[in-house]
């Protein structure tokens, strides 16, 4: 019933009522405002997706994710409500736009996916081989549900991954180096396809990494991939671009992937996240 609920309740009511699961505010409005503030072929390329935003199937994923989040699970039979995503145990609001970040308890810079794994392991008692943890890129996985719920609680908020700890800076800078590093059979780097505005790979309009207003939509994951009929994560998008580049498969959650995510989040700094978004 989320869809009807969501369409019917005014924005303020959604934000005021913690009992209603849904993103913090309306992603369609965030996107509309962004589109109105600039002129971008990338942002406006799919009229159909823009129209579908209120019926984004990923809104259901949020609901499922919240339920999963609050349900006691795993050998320890506890919920994830005590998980610290960077703003203290139990806080989910606004945490995603400030990831990846350095965590004292692990001594590492972590993204949302890794942090969920950390809490599922340390709090709930899951082990690395459990499907709940292992199934990262599948459809309708626990990961996708949890990530979509948690990330949606940052909808409309400005990207602001901290760059205070030396490791956060080191990872961001290494991510930039990887972004521009040319390699592989085709000599590609990320900038080969994302280094200019308004260019297309065949029919797809590409986001320009130096334009934060385009890049914020580009990195707004989880998003519903219409072509794949499923909600997908940031790590999933990275994997697909890496595959197109003819590189070896990237390891989700590796420090390399976190470095890339640290840089790509920094590129969108200050612009509002659109979560859940819809993409082709």
């Amino acid at each position, binding site marked *: 019933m989320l869809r009807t609920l969501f369409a019917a309740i005014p924005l303020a009511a959604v934000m005021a009522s913690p009992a209603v699961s849904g993103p913090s505010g309306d992603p369609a409005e965030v996107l509309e405002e962004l589109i109105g503030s600039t002129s971008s072929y990338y942002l406006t390329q799919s009229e159909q997706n823009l129209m579908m935003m209120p019926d984004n199937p990923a809104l259901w994923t949020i609901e499922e994710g919240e339920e999963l989040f609050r349900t006691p699970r795993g050998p320890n039979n506890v919920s994830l409500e005590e998980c610290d995503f960077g703003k203290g145990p139990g806080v989910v609001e606004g945490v995603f736009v400030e990831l990846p970040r350095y965590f004292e308890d*692990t*001594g*590492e810079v*972590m993204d949302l996916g*890794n942090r969920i*794994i*950390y809490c599922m*392991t340390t709090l709930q008692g899951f082990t*690395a081989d459990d499907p709940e*943890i292992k199934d990262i*890129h599948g459809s309708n996985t626990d990961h996708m549900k949890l990530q979509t719920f948690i990330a949606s609680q940052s909808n409309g908020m400005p990207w602001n991954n901290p760059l205070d700890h*030396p*490791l956060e*800076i*080191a*990872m961001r*800078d*290494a991510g*930039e*180096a*990887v972004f*521009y*590093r*040319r*390699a*592989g*059979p*085709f*000599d*590609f*780097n990320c*900038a*080969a*396809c994302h280094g*200019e505005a*308004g*260019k*297309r*790979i*065949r*029919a797809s309009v*590409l986001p320009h990494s130096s334009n934060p207003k385009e890049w914020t939509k580009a990195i707004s994951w989880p998003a519903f991939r219409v072509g794949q009929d499923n909600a997908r994560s940031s790590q999933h998008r990275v*994997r697909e671009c890496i*595959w*197109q580049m*003819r*590189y*070896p*498969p*990237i*390891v989700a*959650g*590796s*420090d*390399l*992937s976190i*470095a890339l995510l640290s840089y790509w989040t920094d590129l969108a700094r200050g612009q509002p996240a659109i979560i859940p978004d819809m993409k082709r």
Partner: protein
Amino acid sequence: MFENKFRVAAAVAALTLAGTYAIAADVDYTAMTPQELAEYLIFEANGFKLDAQVQEESSARDRLVQDELQMVCTETRNNPSTEQAEAIRQAARDTIVYPEGDIVLGDWEKGRDLAWSGFGYRLEPNFDNHERSGPGANCYNCHEFAGDRQGGTIGPSLRNYGKLRASEEEEVSQAIYRLAYGIIYNAHSMFPCTRMPRQGAKGLLTQEQILDIMAYLFDPESPVNNE
């Protein structure tokens, strides 16, 4: 060197990363330059599956090792100095193997199929089996060719490529054919640090395939010159 220095740490990293979130605690990322850390994350910290199956003789790891050209274009962000650019052009020219004698165009229909195929060299999770079908040339991702299908816009439009280069009474000259052949074979010979893949120099396309693609570009019958 770099790799030796981190060998022990890498072994630890490989062990712990097989789990979930833990990494080697004894490697100080903050003591490295961004480039050093990038290389470390790529080659030593389980960032890529370096032993993934590949189509070619060598390894997945080898795909990530930079050659001289990739290094210079990375360092300069595709803006080489005048001297670097000249060195790149010269080195690229040296890679080009031209057909013996005159360039004779191949079969434009085969060329079209190649230009519009994105198949080839992709690895896990959706491995391109080259035994089932040969790798394509991927041109359409970045170039427009004709009105019949939508190509990309990262590279220049190639519509009417041959028509624009032929004069009323004369066919396209051998000099122009050689130029086009050189660009497809190794475009850095003309445009240092271009984003275009080195199709011939890296063995992605055979001489015959390049001549087929050239026919797609130059043949008066080809849709490129008719739509």
